[in-house]
């Protein structure tokens, strides 16, 4: 339908849709996301490297040579690159590839290629051994999928620096990139809370009566055994505050993050929540820190620039603000 005969409300809706999905944006904040997220993936690979053969080798926990374990192997070896090269080189080579790709991703060198390699590697790790899949494996895979389409190397990256050297300073002063891939990532992150909060309230009575945090702190799996008595003394008031506070922060974040006045407060609160989870709850550290990294994609570019204004390279990166 030509725009000239379109009803005004429909025209306004389409324009809003276009602005929401395809406007140009200053990529400084998503570059910070890339640096933190890349560092986290690098750390994860370094920590898991000593166990690489145990987890993923042909003679590891899920042995490829044992027919009795066929039920434990995923049927689609096509999606596991480890099986393509089985017997050609040791599995630890993939560990090294992961470490190099994570470093390249972090510093922003051949960023999309590094993201694609990490995505394929992460998918292969999940397919190879489902028994050791943890929360961070799934969130890494999700973020890496979006990273393959996102302009994460437009700022604060080796790619950007090399482009400047090759084509001159004006090369990085061109149009800002389109936001569509980042929007998809943002909405996916928000959906996590939109889905998990009702699940918590419907399925977990402890979330409704304020005892959830007590059960976490008392658990040997999810608590460190620190100050457990704090969470049941005084009628469990500390547990109630922590439980209802968690629900309030997680439920309000998907809404408040879209308004300029409440955006930074919502991001700060949810980041502090996840950092608190990283400190108090073991075994989910990398998962919760990956979520904390992801909140950078919501931070307004102007705030990031203000925060980093002393760094000279930041001013050279996309200095034209639309």
């Amino acid at each position, binding site marked *: 339908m030509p725009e000239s005969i379109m009803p005004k409300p429909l025209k306004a809706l389409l324009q809003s849709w276009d602005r929401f999905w395809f406007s140009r944006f200053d990529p400084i904040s998503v570059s910070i996301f890339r640096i933190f997220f890349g560092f986290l993936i690098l750390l994860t690979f370094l920590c898991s490297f000593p166990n690489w053969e145990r987890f993923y080798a042909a003679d590891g926990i899920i042995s490829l040579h044992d027919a009795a374990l066929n039920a434990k192997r995923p049927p689609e070896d096509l999606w596991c690159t480890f099986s393509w090269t089985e017997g050609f080189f040791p599995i630890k080579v993939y560990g090294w590839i992961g470490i190099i790709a994570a470093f390249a991703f972090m510093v922003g060198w051949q960023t999309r290629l590094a993201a694609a390699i990490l995505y394929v590697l992460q998918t292969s790790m999940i397919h190879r051994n489902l028994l*050791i899949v943890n929360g961070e494996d799934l969130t890494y895979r999700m973020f890496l999928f979006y990273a393959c389409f996102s302009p994460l190397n437009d700022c604060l990256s080796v790619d950007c620096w090399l482009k400047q050297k090759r084509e001159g300073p004006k090369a990085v002063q061109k149009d800002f990139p389109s936001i569509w891939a980042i929007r998809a990532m943002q909405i996916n992150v928000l959906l996590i809370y939109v889905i998990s909060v009702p699940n918590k309230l419907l399925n977990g009575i402890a979330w409704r009566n304020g005892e959830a945090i007590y059960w976490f702190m008392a*658990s040997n799996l999810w608590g460190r055994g620190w100050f457990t008595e704090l969470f049941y003394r005084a009628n469990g008031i500390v547990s109630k505050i922590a439980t209802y506070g968690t629900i309030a922060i997680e439920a309000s974040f998907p809404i408040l993050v879209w308004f300029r006045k409440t955006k930074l407060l919502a991001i700060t609160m949810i980041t502090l929540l996840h950092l608190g989870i990283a400190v108090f709850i073991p075994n989910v550290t990398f998962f919760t820190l990956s979520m904390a990294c992801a909140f950078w994609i919501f931070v307004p570019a102007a705030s990031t620039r203000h925060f980093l204004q002393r760094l000279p390279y930041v001013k050279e990166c996309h200095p034209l603000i639309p």
Partner: protein
Amino acid sequence: MLNIFTVLYTNRPVNLVNPVFQRLSHSFSPQTAYQFRLGAWLIERYAYLAGLDNRWVMFSWHNRFNWWNVITAQYGKGPAESKRIVLPLAFQSPRTFWQQLQDFKEAKFHLNIYNDPIGREAYSRYLCRQYPVHDDQPVEAITFERHYQIILEPAQARLYKTHLHPTKASYILNTFPCPNR
């Protein structure tokens, strides 16, 4: 939009949606019903490949008891010669700082094999290969012992001034003989 729809589809409340869908499919022709099932499979396949097939039900449920596995290996045959050794694994032996850093996947691994006898069998076979001999005795079997301890309700914890029941219990979960023994 495809990704958003995929995430929403993966996290649909299955107890509500699936019965409705099954009822509706009875009023379709077999071909139409097949097309719907094919569409659902394609979405699930895309979710699986793109890494969007996670169900976000994090921490909805809580354990009301602490539990842990103790994995032991039996070396030597017969009551005179056999010895049961607690294997030097995460959560059941002293760990250095670097080992603790590397153990970040262990808790989820134990959670994943909690209700998975085939997973425990796979792990036992691996342990047979990793710890084949002790004091010149070959390994005969790997045993999984489940230990647990009840966590008291908050009101009980206030009364008894502790959050854990004093009694710890255990039982033998599985004993897997090592292959070629």
